């Protein structure tokens, strides 16, 4: 296996710093991942040379900007195997991608009495936009429940589907429990009823190989910053047939064909959904991130991360008084846990002082906390540049926490 962890760690400059005088252990990857040097260089390069706006200029630099920008679109199309390049829409993040679909799909296809299905383990980004549009349209939001392991109860999902269901939107991987949802099955079931499915892939794209045609999902979205790319960029993949029918979301320059005060006509896909000056530098930076991932190989990453998660699960399970939340059969990337009689915030503060970055709190998934009746969790989330030694440091830190609060 050509997966050289020492070499890989060298690619990530942020790994090589000390926090409170000790080497940083970064286990907050589900919040945002670190960036390889090539991504940072790509942004620096862009601003030091090309630095131009796209699409509208005849001048050389603007042409260069446009070409690199559009090449990234092609690159992403290929990476997720979308059929058409114009099915790739750039947004500012997963949250905006979901807002776009909830709003635009909702405006076109949702009416009073219709139903939208989400799940109990969604991130707020995949709950609130649907709540809003349902409220606006007088539609009903239905929720697939989870079992005690944090797995979607598929039987219940089937029962929720009616001839009023207009769309299903679920996450690929839970950012809180780490559950890998059976999205292929969820999609197939919905399609038997001709219902389109949106997948919140913010965590999914990071830990799985994505082929949107094979999945046959109707929408798939993710954030650059959680996938080793810069902040401020997201992707929405959508099937042409839906994107064509949906009205524009935000409006302004770029996305129009003609504007008079009487009538405005809109541009073709993908531009119909992209208005204003796009985040050219960071889109191009995201292209570099994807190239980097391709070079390492997502299969290698998945294999390595599996081992890491297995090790972490074993080690943490061995700690007395520690309970893991989320024990799905298929899991990736994340371990959420609590220590008996210790508030996660207290634990988080001490773990931080031990130079380990974990997240504590509700992880933007309050319904999951309500489901388990807990105030929050401590969450360690992993990337392929993490090591077993780092996991062991986390274990030591947890033991220290227990000692201090014991």
């Amino acid at each position, binding site marked *: 296996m050509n997966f050289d962890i020492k070499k890989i760690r060298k690619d990530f400059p942020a790994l090589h710093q000390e926090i*409170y005088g000790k080497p940083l252990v970064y286990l907050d990857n589900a919040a945002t991942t670190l960036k390889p040097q090539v991504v940072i260089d790509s942004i620096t390069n862009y601003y030091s040379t090309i630095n131009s706006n796209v699409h509208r200029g005849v001048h050389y630099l603007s042409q260069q900007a446009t070409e690199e920008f559009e090449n990234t679109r092609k690159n992403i199309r290929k990476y997720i195997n979308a059929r058409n390049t114009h099915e790739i829409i750039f947004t500012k993040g997963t949250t905006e991608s979901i807002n776009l679909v909830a709003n635009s799909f909702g405006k076109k296809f949702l009416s009073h009495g219709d139903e939208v299905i989400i799940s109990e383990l969604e991130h707020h980004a995949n709950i609130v936009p649907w709540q809003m549009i349902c409220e606006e349209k007088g539609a009903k939001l239905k929720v697939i429940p989870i079992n005690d392991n944090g797995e979607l109860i598929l039987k219940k999902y089937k029962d929720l589907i009616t001839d009023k269901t207009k769309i299903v939107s679920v996450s690929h991987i839970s950012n809180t429990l780490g559950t890998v949802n059976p999205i292929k099955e969820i999609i197939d079931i919905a399609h038997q009823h001709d219902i389109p499915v949106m997948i919140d892939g913010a965590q999914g794209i990071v830990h799985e190989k994505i082929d949107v045609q094979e999945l046959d999902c109707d929408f798939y979205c993710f954030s650059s910053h959680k996938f080793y790319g810069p902040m401020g960029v997201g992707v929405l993949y959508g099937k042409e047939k839906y994107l064509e029918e949906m009205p524009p979301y935000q409006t302004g320059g770029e996305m129009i064909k003609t504007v008079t005060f009487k009538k405005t006509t809109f541009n073709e896909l993908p531009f119909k959904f992209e208005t204003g000056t796009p985040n050219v530098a960071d889109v191009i930076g995201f292209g570099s991130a994807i190239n980097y991932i391709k070079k390492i190989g997502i299969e290698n990453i998945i294999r390595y991360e599996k081992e890491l998660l297995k090790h972490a699960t074993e080690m943490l399970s061995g700690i007395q008084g520690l309970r893991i939340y989320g024990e799905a059969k298929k899991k990736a990337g994340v371990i959420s846990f609590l220590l008996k009689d*210790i*508030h*996660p*915030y*207290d634990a*988080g*503060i*001490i773990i931080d*002082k031990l130079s380990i970055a974990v997240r*504590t*709190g509700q992880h933007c998934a309050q319904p999951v906390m309500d489901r388990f009746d807990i*105030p*929050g969790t401590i969450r360690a989330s992993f990337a392929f540049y993490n090591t077993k030694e780092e996991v062991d440091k986390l274990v030591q830190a947890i033991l220290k926490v227990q000692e*201090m*609060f014991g």
Partner: protein
Amino acid sequence: MTIREIEKEITEEFSMFDDWMDKYNHLIEMGKSLPLIEKKYRTDQYLISGCQSRVWLSAEMEDGKVIFKADSDAVITKGIINLLIRILSNQTPDNILNAKMDFINQVGLKEHLSPTRSNGLTSMIKQMKLYAVVFKTKMAQ
């Protein structure tokens, strides 16, 4: 004791600790000592919204001085609350309003009180001063 004196006392107390761990152990001890608020005040009405740990705060006026009571579900937060109460409780509204709370920087707990920490402690100090304003106005009437 005046606020300044208590602040000085606390600063000295903390200066004894060589490393952060001892300091936090001390905070934890302070946090563990007794619940600081009566059960009836542990309701949403007295809740100061903070992101990660919950903080309840009540205030009463006795002999021209404000008596604060508070609690939290996190021990470290409770420890810091304990410090705040030591300083601001049993003081006149005017003294509370004028308190600079410099000790926070000096004992190295600044990070807990930056608004970005979103743990409700900044809101708590704000709320304590707000109570002081209210009592002051009442007294003036």
